[in-house]
């Protein structure tokens, strides 16, 4: 059999070594927030010029799939998606880690990633040409409805707190419109600064929204970052396999969703993860446990995002259209090699393609041992290193990670600013995840909408564009179903089960001590401020073209309506007898306000210092200051010295990784 011959071709020691090296490097890069799969692949390109095309593809594919997988580590262990693909992994992965199941979550993520990656690669191997048609059938209206479908996830993410979820999503959608609009070219909400011209980078937004609140809360108390369970035996692989087997339908469904969304050039891993998560939660019998540490959420997201790797190669190799940004780089590398991709590739140069696909399958399987090994180490490090080292390390990573996106310190300022706002909002019940959803889906929704409208207008068929196409109708039905599912499910759930469920699901999880039944004054103040933001946003659309202003006007109006609803809802509630303020749990130490303020200021100063006095010196000083802020114990001078040595080591290590391996331009001011 011909295919078997290609399998043997891909099994040369050199190719295996490339696959292994690629997966290891990819996993590490993916685990660091800000360093993306795209960056990892781009770095490797020059090295592939001297390789055979199949080997080059194997190396690039391995590093890519490794990076998508690595994103799960940061998501689970520090609540920050390492790459945008693992956003939905934070929803359940981090709660699992918090309660002491971090090792288990890492193992589950690894198994799910391997299975998802295999399904995607098998789709590429067996069904590539027919599946590529999907990419062509997805036009602007389909993208619009896909984004709308993604947004309906808000209704399940914010059960019991729907209005605040909707407000959060509106904020995210408005944020996504900042900068120069691709469609129409309007300059929007930049406040005449150059700083905002490029818009809010999704990665820096993600790091800010997810990770800054973690850092601020981390330094505030003496409690450990993650709980260590009594009978902790590391990664708990056997248990992980059993759980994954129990969730096998979820696993397969998510892998298929991931493969198909990977094929769509405008979507990508983040949307694949969110859609699979939403489907997993909707169809689960334990859907109320999602968002509180249900393994199914981790399985759905991680299976789907790794499946996008194989899926994304389908249009890349069959049509010559990159499915995802890393695919675009790989396509370029192939062109430099003199390989013509496109329909002819599978026939004329089948040897290269099939050798590569087998290489990708092997690389995916290698993720199991590699991932478990790295995962074990990462998990051990996170739970065993003292807080005085953990907090500054995370702070350092988010600062350099946000800088690395465009080698621009402005992204770091933006990240810190967004993070502080996110922390305040989160404290008063506005969770980060709806904001992220809006930020990610906003551009897709808006572009799809405006393009559909333009095409519909040119062909006198606006209505048919939006509502007359089969895939659109399917997406609309799915969106309605997801939106109202919580209500439908409630109606059909037996009364007994409802009684058990209500107390846990009706309240907001992270801060159960602040019941929402009472009038929520801080929430009302925020709502009032946001009404003002909404009004300003509408006023600012005056100078825009009609197409550029339709979306921001709609969203800003929606924001105002939701905020008014929140105000009205609160007016109907009784005033709390305790004045709305609730003291933290008696058992826990009082969170320290000065540390919170200090760490925020330290982060900002650190970013400014990088720009002014250079990367290395600023980072060592910044590291030391955050160590001091997060240190809750009496510490001997010797220990301080050890801390300083570790700080220098970490900064030096990352300096080399960034400037020598990833070739990122670092500011070299006065003192390098």
């Amino acid at each position: 059999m011909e295919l078997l011959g290609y399998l043997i071709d891909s099994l040369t020691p050199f190719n295996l070594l490339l696959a292994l090296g690629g997966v290891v490097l990819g996993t590490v890069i993916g685990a660091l927030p800000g360093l993306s799969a795209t960056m990892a692949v781009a770095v490797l390109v020059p090295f592939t010029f001297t390789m055979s095309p199949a080997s080059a593809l194997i190396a690039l594919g391995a590093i890519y799939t490794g990076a998508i997988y690595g994103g799960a580590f940061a998501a689970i262990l520090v609540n920050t998606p390492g790459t945008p693909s693992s956003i939905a992994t934070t929803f359940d992965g981090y709660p699992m880690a918090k309660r002491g199941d971090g090792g288990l979550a890492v193992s589950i993520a690894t198994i799910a990633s391997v299975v998802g990656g295999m399904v995607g690669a098998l789709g590429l191997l067996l069904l590539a040409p027919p599946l590529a048609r999907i990419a062509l059938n997805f036009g602007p209206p389909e993208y619009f409805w896909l984004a709308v479908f993604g947004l309906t996830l808000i209704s399940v993410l914010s059960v019991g707190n729907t209005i605040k979820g909707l407000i959060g999503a509106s904020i995210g959608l408005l944020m996504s419109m900042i900068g120069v609009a691709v469609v129409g070219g309007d300059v929007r909400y930049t406040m005449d600064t150059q700083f905002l011209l490029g818009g809010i980078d999704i990665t820096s937004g993600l790091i800010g929204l997810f990770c800054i609140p973690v850092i601020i809360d981390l330094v505030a108390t003496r409690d450990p970052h993650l709980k260590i369970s009594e009978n902790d035996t590391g990664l708990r692989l056997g248990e992980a396999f059993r759980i994954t087997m129990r969730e096998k339908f979820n696993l397969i469904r998510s892998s298929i969703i991931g493969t198909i969304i990977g094929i769509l050039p405008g979507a990508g891993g983040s949307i694949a993860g969110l859609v699979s998560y939403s489907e997993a939660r909707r169809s689960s019998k334990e859907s109320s446990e999602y968002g509180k540490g249900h393994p199914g959420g981790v399985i759905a997201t991680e299976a789907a995002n790794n499946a996008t790797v194989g899926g994304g190669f389908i249009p890349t190799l069959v049509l010559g259209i990159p499915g995802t940004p890393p695919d675009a780089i790989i396509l370029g590398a192939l062109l430099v090699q003199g390989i013509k991709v496109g329909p002819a590739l599978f026939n004329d140069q089948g040897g290269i393609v099939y050798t590569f696909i087998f290489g990708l399958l092997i690389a995916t399987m290698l993720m199991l041992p590699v991932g478990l090994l790295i995962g074990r180490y990462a998990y051990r490090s996170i739970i065993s290193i003292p807080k005085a080292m953990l907090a500054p390390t995370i702070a350092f990573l988010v600062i350099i990670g946000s800088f690395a996106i465009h080698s621009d310190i402005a992204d770091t300022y933006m990240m810190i600013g967004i993070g502080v706002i996110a922390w305040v909002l989160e404290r008063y019940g506005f969770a980060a995840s709806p904001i992220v959803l809006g930020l990610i889906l906003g551009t897709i929704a808006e572009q799809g909408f405006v393009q559909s409208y333009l095409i519909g207008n040119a062909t006198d068929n606006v209505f048919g564009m939006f509502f007359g196409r089969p895939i659109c109708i399917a997406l609309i039905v799915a969106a309605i179903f997801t939106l109202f599912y919580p209500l439908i499910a409630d109606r059909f759930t037996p009364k007994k089960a409802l009684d058990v469920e209500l107390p846990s699901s009706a309240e907001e999880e992270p801060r159960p001590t602040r019941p929402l039944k009472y009038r929520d004054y801080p929430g009302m103040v925020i709502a009032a401020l946001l009404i003002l933001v909404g009004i300003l946003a509408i006023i600012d659309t005056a100078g825009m073209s009609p197409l550029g202003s339709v979306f921001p006007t709609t969203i800003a109006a929606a924001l105002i309506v939701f905020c008014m609803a929140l105000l009205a809802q609160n007016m109907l509630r009784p005033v709390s007898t305790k004045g709305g303020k609730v003291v933290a749990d008696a058992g826990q130490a009082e969170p320290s306000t000065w540390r919170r303020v200090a760490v925020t200021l330290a982060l900002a100063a650190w970013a400014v210092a990088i720009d002014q006095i250079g990367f290395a010196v600023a980072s060592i000083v910044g590291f030391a200051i955050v160590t001091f802020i997060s240190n809750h114990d009496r510490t001997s001078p010797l220990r301080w010295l050890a801390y300083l040595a570790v700080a220098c080591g970490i900064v030096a290590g990352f300096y080399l990784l960034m400037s020598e391996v990833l070739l990122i331009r670092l500011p070299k001011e006065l003192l390098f």
Partner: protein
Amino acid sequence: MRIPRLQMAAAIAAVAVGAATALAADFPSKPINYIIPFNAGGESDISARFQQSVWEKHTGGQPVVIQYQAGAGGAQAWSKLNGMEADGHTVMGINLPHTVLQPMIKDVGYQTDDLTPVHYFHYTPNAIFVSKDSKFKTLQDLIDHAKANPGAVTFAGSGSNSANHLAQAQFDQLAGVKTTYIPFTGTGPSVTAVLGNQTMAGFNYAPSGLNQGDAMRMLAVASEERMPAFPDVPTFKELGFDLVGGAYRGVSVPKDTPEEIRKKVSDIVAAINADPEFRKKMEAGGFVLTEVTYDKMEAFVESKKGEYAKAAELLGLKKQ
């Protein structure tokens, strides 16, 4: 502490001046950083990668390191170019019409004349594409349909106020038709729209015609002469429309880079352009090589500024 700092600055300046003269003699003396102001994977990146694959042959063994600094359609990097090390070991990709149009319509932190291109080495011509099952077999078919149904012909293209968008506006004027331009977020999505018949046609760059093989038909291309990669595709000029252009790509340096070094960088790019291996790859990839060396630069940029100003008027662009 004020005096030592002043002395130090003076010393640094002295060293820098001395170094600059020494540098010109043995330039390049270390790897050259080549910053691409876009994300990896686009035409700017691919053409730089083509250069990279033969670079060392023309610099006495010094390699080139490609870095990416994307943001705001390239403006983020261009606005920072003049603050970078001006010893020739830091160069940046530069594009037209971007660097003329961007400062024309908004405040992007640089002016066209602030930038110092030293060599524009190629362009990707605009071309009109349709999918293989389109009823338009020739450009005339498309024009006839557009004349009978004003506004009904939809063109997918990459971005608003881009080279594709300018070409569509110029085409409408030259052919006396009215068409609708649908901007997409880049070449990939816009080609997908053409392939999937989401739009009736596309204004894309010529290299797109290669990857898709028979799936797309090219009706006309905006190059001076027929392209080696597409011997059967007529030029707009042949068909009677004076439409030549696309996205031009070159190499620029920070403004403080000494004259001799600017020439040397230009010479390196020119030598790579003459490399048969490079020429073959670029032409097969649908790129058209140009020889706008440093001495021809001023006249070239001036003429392009005039051309784009006229085209921008067609689009109704004004400073926001």
